[in-house]
């Protein structure tokens, strides 16, 4: 039938880890030769650093470079119990939630409309997706210009409403700018996936629905939306990952690299503590905690993708 969402076949193979070809080559040395570059890079630049992160999370580095001491779970305990970490974790949660909901919602609305209109559909599509190619820090740079204290039109506009927006000074105002820039940057990806999900719903199903159900709104919620749900679940994970990790560039630029008392996300804190604070153990412990979060997200992602198989 139709493909409710692309990529499900991949997931099935990934989860089972099978090669599916009926016929394969049997030449003994060739596959190792082909795999060597990839495996070498993975070993040196992935496995080694990941292991290093885990190892140093259990050590306390001497600040003057005289070796390190094994401290067990102290780094983790210090991290989790520090009030600052709790504050950052809470902000990350709220930030992730808002960015995800807002960018998914806006993209879904736009995709549904773009799927419906006959005239100008391809122009809308192009105009709504090109921001995909804009780098997060560039988005941040344009963002701080729009939110600039002296020249920013947004600041001037909200001043008319009595809101004296001060990014870099006010905690919530800064967070607001970060969220707007992050949502702006993420709408295109969601839009592309939702639109292709909508377009892959078979025409005959939609025609059947329009015979069975008069109200367009009801039809959307009872037929289109459930068929789109697999794409939505998949995007949910993608967006959470984006908000937690890929917004680094936006945040760094909005903060003009000087965080001060402003909101930061967990990943940003790993970077701050590791590179600015020279707290190797603490930063590593935070890395490991984040690794666990990503790990769980990835597992959920593959579970969800497996379920999408039902729709094909």
């Amino acid at each position, binding site marked *: 039938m139709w493909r409710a969402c692309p990529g499900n076949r991949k997931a099935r193979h990934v989860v089972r880890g099978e*090669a599916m070809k009926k016929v394969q080559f049997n030449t003994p040395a060739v596959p190792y030769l082909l795999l060597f570059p*990839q495996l070498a890079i993975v070993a040196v630049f992935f496995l080694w650093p990941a292991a290093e992160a885990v190892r140093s999370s259990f050590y306390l580095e001497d600040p003057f470079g005289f070796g390190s001491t094994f401290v067990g779970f102290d780094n983790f305990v210090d991290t989790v119990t520090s009030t600052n970490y709790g504050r950052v974790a809470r902000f990350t949660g709220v930030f992730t939630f808002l960015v995800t909901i807002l960018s998914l919602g806006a993209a879904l609305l*736009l995709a549904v409309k773009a799927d419906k209109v006959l005239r100008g559909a391809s122009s809308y599509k192009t105009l709504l997706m090109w921001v995909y*190619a*804009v780098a997060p820090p560039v988005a941040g740079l344009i963002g701080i210009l729009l939110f600039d204290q002296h020249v920013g039109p947004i600041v001037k506009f909200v001043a008319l409403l009595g809101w004296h927006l001060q990014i870099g000074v006010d905690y919530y105002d800064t967070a607001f700018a970060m969220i707007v820039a992050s949502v702006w940057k993420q709408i295109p990806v969601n839009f592309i996936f939702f639109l292709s999900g909508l377009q892959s719903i078979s025409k005959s199903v939609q025609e059947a629905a329009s015979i069975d159900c008069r109200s367009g709104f009801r039809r959307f919620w009872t037929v289109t939306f459930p068929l789109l749900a697999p794409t939505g679940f998949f995007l949910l994970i993608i967006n959470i990952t984006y908000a937690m990790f890929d917004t680094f560039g936006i945040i760094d630029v909005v903060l003009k690299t000087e965080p001060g008392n402003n909101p930061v996300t967990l990943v940003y804190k790993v970077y701050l503590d590791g590179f600015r604070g020279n707290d190797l153990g603490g930063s590593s412990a935070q890395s490991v905690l984040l690794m666990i979060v990503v790990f769980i997200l990835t597992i959920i992602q593959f579970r969800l993708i497996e379920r999408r198989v039902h729709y094909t």
Partner: protein
Amino acid sequence: MKRLQISDHIILLAGVFFMVTPVVLAFLTSTHDAVTIYRTGLQYSIGDQGLSAYGTVLTRAGGFTKEVNGMVMLKNSLILGFGFAIGKIVISMLAAYAIVYFRFPMASFCFWVIFCTLLLPLEVRILPSYEIVQKLGMVNTYSGLIVPLIASATGTFFFRQFFLSVPDELLEAARIDGAGPWKFFIDILVPISKTMIAAIFIIMFVYGWNQYLWPTLITTDESFFTLVRGIKQILQVWVGAQIPDYDQAMALAILAMLPPVVIVVVFQSWFIKGLVESDK
């Protein structure tokens, strides 16, 4: 029906306005001089300065940095974009070919080792990655900039999925026609993957070009700065400047987004196909 269509268009136009306006404003502002901008705010028309801010950013060293001008940064961005995309495609096609088309004892072990790289983005292992690159003496080198980024296996999975969708009979026919592993790869598999390669190239080029955190750490020598990396430099000049060079900052922002945006728009259908089918 007709009224519904109008409301649809209004919503879409609002969306387009939200997506497009910031960049249009950035461009218009870049055509005015910094003092005008400082006095009157962002600009809504083409200014007297025209594109001269772009000339300044591209050619004059010391606009933001002391040693490097925009041309050098543009060159470095292209090296990063192309190097990353080509390196990733070559390496991941070879690996995916081995995994899909060969029967060998360690196949599933190799598969899982590569698979696990999808679990951890570079950002969470950034510190140890930096230290290792430093130990290997790869700081301020192009290979230090590019190779660690290739460690994630997204490309391998993309090609693996594509190869699995290639009909088995094609390999069978080729074997009956006397093609060995190498011949099959070059004569059949690579040519039929052409559109897939193009699609993944676009995605990877954009991904490489847009890298920020990693180049920030790995390149401290200004002659290795990319355009996106250069933004960090603007910010450091900006903080504490009396009248920031808004025009040049915006010119740099536009320059930094132009090549990937053009590629994505021009090769839209390939790009969307690649994005939607690769899942990442």
